[in-house]
């Protein structure tokens, strides 16, 4: 009996415990894992150091300041072929973000519409949406990008058909609404033109957005403290439109729209969306839209019917049932996969290289890499960009997830 209650004899540490004792075994494993890891990385780095090509040229990021010497056909910031490789890479990064942003917006619109319509009672509509979703989910996005590029570059009419003949008669084709022209060189769209006072108008608009949020806060405060319902919808719409329009009129229209005009040989003014941009944008939105549609559908189905009925039994009107009961629960299911779809869009913009859109993969990972031969450096920078972007987005997503997660134990 006594032996049971005796405190265990204080034994010294033995080597055998490193393998047999559960308390110490984990240190052995980790040590072995660490050694293996260091050895394999050492082996890789050693190989790289002994590589004849790398030994000759070394690893050097100095090439970034050399003149790039190639042209980029979509320049959101100023760029000439004499600008540095770094500037070309920055333009590429901006182009990546432009197409990613556009595609995220339209993919969400397509996805929400298709997801809601797929649940519609209308047999034809729901089946059409099912066909859309299955078609686009099961065929690689690269094929869609190339198909849409082929359509934009081959089936749109040539610019010559928009040309006004010498005798002054009507051109073969006119501009759609006088604003848009789809040609095989790309789609011409109107461009916003800012005079210097334009920033005041933009500033007013941003201020009214802040104002709308303030109004909503105020309305909620009133509701909770005094039980008084302050109208929100119409005042916020008015707040968004009226001050901006007033400012625009007062300052004499500093923000204008410049339509594309047919000159003698080509279009002048306006903004040219090249077939590559259109293909990438449209294909990514319609492809990812199919995935988002499934997320939206799952989110709506995840809210059980009892919730709607309970809200109705409490006497809420249908609009409030939707906004206070169904949507908050559905959004909790929809938003996380939605964000990861946005990440997928951003990563898939790297397929731009297949249609010659000058995104980061096209500039830094394409022409710069081939011209300078600095594969290692270029690929490292390329990965660093995408990685930073993805990690930043997922960090934001985690914050959001924690804020809406069900508070359980």
């Amino acid at each position: 009996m006594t032996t049971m209650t005796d405190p265990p004899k204080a034994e010294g540490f033995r080597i055998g415990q490193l393998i047999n004792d559960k308390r110490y075994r984990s240190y052995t494993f980790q040590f072995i894992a660490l050694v293996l890891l260091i050895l394999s990385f050492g082996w890789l780095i050693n190989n790289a150091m002994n590589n004849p090509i790398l030994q000759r040229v070394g690893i050097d990021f100095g090439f970034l300041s050399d003149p790039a010497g190639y042209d980029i056909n979509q320049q959101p910031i100023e760029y000439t072929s004499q600008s540095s490789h770094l500037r070309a890479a920055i333009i590429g990064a901006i182009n990546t973000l432009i197409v990613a942003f556009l595609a995220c917006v339209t993919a969400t619109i397509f996805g929400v519409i298709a997801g809601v319509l797929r649940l519609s009672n209308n047999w034809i509509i729901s089946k059409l949406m099912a066909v859309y979703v299955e078609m686009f989910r099961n065929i690689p996005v690269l094929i869609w990008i190339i198909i849409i590029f082929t359509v934009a570059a081959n089936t749109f009419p040539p610019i010559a058909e928009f040309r006004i003949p010498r005798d002054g008669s009507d051109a073969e084709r006119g501009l759609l609404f006088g604003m848009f022209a789809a040609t095989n060189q790309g789609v011409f769209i109107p461009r916003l033109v800012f005079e210097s006072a334009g920033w005041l108008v933009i500033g007013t608009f941003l201020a009214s957005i802040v104002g709308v949020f303030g109004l909503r806060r105020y309305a909620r405060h009133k509701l909770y403290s005094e039980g008084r319902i302050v109208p929100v919808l119409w005042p916020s719409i008015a707040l968004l439109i009226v001050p901006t329009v007033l400012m625009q009129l007062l300052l004499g229209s500093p923000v204008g729209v410049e339509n594309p005009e047919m000159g003698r040989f080509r279009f002048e003014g306006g903004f040219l969306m090249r077939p590559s941009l259109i293909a990438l944008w449209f294909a990514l939105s319609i492809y990812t839209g199919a995935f988002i549609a499934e997320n939206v559908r799952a989110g709506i189905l995840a809210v059980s019917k009892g919730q709607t009925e309970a809200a109705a039994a409490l006497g809420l009107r249908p609009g409030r049932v939707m906004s206070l009961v169904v949507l908050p629960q559905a959004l909790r299911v929809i938003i996380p996969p939605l964000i990861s779809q946005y990440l997928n869009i951003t990563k898939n913009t790297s397929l731009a290289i297949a249609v010659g859109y000058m995104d980061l993969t096209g500039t830094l990972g394409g022409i710069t890499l081939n011209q300078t031969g600095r594969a290692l450096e270029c690929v490292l920078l390329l990965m660093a960009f995408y990685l930073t972007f993805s990690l930043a987005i997922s960090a934001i997503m985690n914050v959001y997830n924690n804020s809406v997660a069900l508070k359980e134990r």
Partner: protein
Amino acid sequence: MSDAHAHSIAFVRETELPPAPPPTAETGAVKWVRENLFSSIFNTIMTILGLLIVLYLLSGLIPWIVNGTWEGASIRDCRETLQGSGGGCFAVLAERWPQLLFGFQYPDYLRWRPSLAFALLFLAVPPVLFFKLPRWMLVITALYPFVAYWLIWGGTAITPIFALIGVIAGYFAFTRVERQGFVLGLLAGVIVAAIMWWIGGYIAAEEPGWLRIEAVPSREMGGFMLNMILGIVCVSLSIPIGIVLALGRQSRLPVVKGFCVVFIEFVRGVPLITLLFVANVVLAYFLPPGTNFDLIVRVIIMITMFSSAYIAEVIRGGLAALPKGQYEAGDSLGLDYAQSMRLIVLPQALKISIPGIVNVAVGLFKDTTLVSVISMFDLVGMIRGPILSSTAWTGVYWELWAAACVLFFVVCYGISQYSQWLERQLRTDHR
């Protein structure tokens, strides 16, 4: 009461009248149409719009298919036959079909070998997909990789045979030593297998002519076959790696956990194309000077890395979905880590994560088309490169891309339907 009443009246109906049929507007097709297509004004507008869209699509599609021509040697022949009837020039498919499937370099008299390997796939895969088939059929699945390798790449049969012997010997060594501990067993298995492979490599170098069929180098692989090879090889390799990574990410050992987290987050944060760039231009720097891997092997390494990170995340979801009691039950039975994972946790966690794994597999199969960007001639690369740039077929876009769409759709839709079927099978709750 009622009795008394009955006697006082001359006639009382003794049987109930059969219910009158509902009005025609409330039965059968009419009711269905009213409820599903024309229940409100908005719904009616939607129906008409939907019908218009369907009509528009069909009016373009049907003449294209029906009037299409399957004979001719070039786009000019097609134009002559079609005379502007709006039909498709499917002659390109008839002529280039083998190229679409096998690439333009695979010797045409050897095409029966990958075809046979593809046919055998239908024997090898079902035992994995359908649990009700007899278990001995898994032997076919286990033999398949070696047979398929021999059929597609050719060369002496010694290489695949010794690869197989190595695996079997390693497995026996593992089962013998496993009682001493899982890790020791694994170590013994790997060592024995490596010895057998080394002997095999030696014999193959000495006797290259034994049971030899004509060898085909990997750079001659192409077409849809390349997509299939990459998809199947990478998915099957990445499932075990993904399991290890997922377990590592859950582990209490900081070094192991840290490595797995960094690896998974890194791979998931970069696009596949950059990894393919690594395979194409960078990976060679990190291998010993003089080693010359095939591009296809380097691509398989990178795509496997890519998909194993995604599969690891799916499996981590499965592991997290298991109630904690399952882990504790394993501990309380006195099982060690390897035993409780192998016998209790993983079978349940994998079952939960199968639909997710299938989704990753479909996505990966679609992503194999990206290899066309690093100038490999898979299905997309074949169409964009040799076929569309040949003088005979310049401008035949629709037919070729439609064929590519159909091929991918059939495979991917088939897999996703299987996944949905499996989800219904595995659902244990009653609804």
